């Protein structure tokens, strides 16, 4: 395993795993405590539209995903907030629209482009250094925004009604949070693929939640657990030539199950 580090593509893969873990820990925490996992699933699946459009236009598909995913996140948020359309229907519609556009534009793309499974389930061998730069920049935006809006996101997650009463901009905060989810999707898509992004957004946080009652600690634990899952998953990807997203899920689920059992045992001992 150690000698694998001499290869650029392995180092890139591990770096991509680290960058994805940061987004997972910080944004995944809000996704889980505010219970918007389904909304986040919609945003991540919709990103396939941007990937297809990127391939069609001959630009970096992650850049295509960046613009398209931001737009569909804002679209979902505005429709859910401002209209009476049912939330699940709205999310579902934009979810399938993104996937349909992704497949169509992928088929229309000129020349040979990587197949869709690479984007559906993650393919670390495609990670380029420009991808890594984009991912690092998005992580920086995520961390900066969360540190500026920490108060607002906390009130938004816990008690919007009270937030409104003290004049906190709840709708704007909600839309900004959805945009940050869109950015995290772009950060994670190389590693996890659009279908499995949600696993890395939710599972490390759900695992970490068994061990702390502090939001900040939960973010740190989740980054750490994300890093453990992605690194082990990347090991499996390298050794056995598995798709990286499924390999990481295979690691994350047992970690979650173990933490759940551990927390139950500890609770029983306390009682």
């Amino acid at each position: 395993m150690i000698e694998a580090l001499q290869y650029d593509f392995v180092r890139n893969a591990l770096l991509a795993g680290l960058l994805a873990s940061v987004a997972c820990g910080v944004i995944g925490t809000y996704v889980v405590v505010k219970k918007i996992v389904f909304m986040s699933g919609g945003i991540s699946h919709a990103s396939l539209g941007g990937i297809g459009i990127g391939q069609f236009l001959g630009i970096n598909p992650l850049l295509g995903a960046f613009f398209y995913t931001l737009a569909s996140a804002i679209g979902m948020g505005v429709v859910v907030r401002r209209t009476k359309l049912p939330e699940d229907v709205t999310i579902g519609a934009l979810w399938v629209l993104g996937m349909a556009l992704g497949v169509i534009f992928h088929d229309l793309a000129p020349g040979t482009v990587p197949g869709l499974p690479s984007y559906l389930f993650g393919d670390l061998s495609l990670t380029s250094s420009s991808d890594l730069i984009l991912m690092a920049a998005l992580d920086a935006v995520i961390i900066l925004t969360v540190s500026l809006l920490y108060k607002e996101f906390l009130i938004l997650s816990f008690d919007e009604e009270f937030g409104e009463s003290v004049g906190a901009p709840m709708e704007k905060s909600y839309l900004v949070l959805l945009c940050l989810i869109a950015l995290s999707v772009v950060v994670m898509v190389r590693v996890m693929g659009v279908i499995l992004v949600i696993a890395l957004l939710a599972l490390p946080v759900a695992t970490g939640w068994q061990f702390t009652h502090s939001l900040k600690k939960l973010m740190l634990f989740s980054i750490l657990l994300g890093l453990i899952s992605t690194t082990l998953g990347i090991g499996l990807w390298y050794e056995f030539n598995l798709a990286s997203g499924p390999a990481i899920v295979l690691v994350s689920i047992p970690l979650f199950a173990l933490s759940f059992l551990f927390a139950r045992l500890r609770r029983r001992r306390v009682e």
Partner: protein
Amino acid sequence: MLKEIVRLEDVSVRYDGIVVLEDINLSVYEDDFLGIIGPNGGGKTTLLKTILGLVKPSQGRVSVLGNPPNKARRLMGYVPQYNLFDRDFPLSALEVVLMGRYGQVGLFKRYSREDKKLALNALAEVGMLELKHRQIGSLSGGEQQRIFIARALVAHPQILLLDEPTASIDTPMQAGLYELLSELKRRMAIVLVSHDISAVSIYVDKIACLNRRLFYHGDKELEARELEEAYQCPVDMIAHGVPHRVLREHR
């Protein structure tokens, strides 16, 4: 002259063409402890939200110390109806109370040491200082309600608005909570809405009855006819701490 804190003039509120509040006239003065009772769906929560400026009246005027409500949010402390947050929500009692300083701190900035001191004072005032580091969901319903009152108090409001504060609490804890409110009323006006007539009427100084329209005479007496009109059914009522049945029984 007592200071008038809140004034509603001919206020009506419609949602999707349905009239929720109609021609409400109400003045709340600085020493008032007003209980507003009424059936579920009678517009109680909407009335509080209208005073807070979260719901815009379709007609009429709301003023809080002479200002439109959205300019006067800092003068009002709100204790929303008990909401079912996740019992494991990773947040301590102290962090919940700090949220109450939001209006004073504002966008992008962090809570200061001074804010934290004020939050600890507010926790002490509601008798919850020792539980400051406890996770909010691990507290009992009554303890949580005190934390939420502390969160409203920490901004030093001139009026406290409480929505069904006793709904999630067992009876012995309810008495303690009303005693806390009786202490607080020396410093601020209090308006609380509830569907529980008997509990409210023992502690509050004034009672109004709300079912789309407001029945209120600035005192604790309500005529049976008005209650019946508001609830559209016979009601048990306790006045001045002396329980007596004022209306005929349900059949």
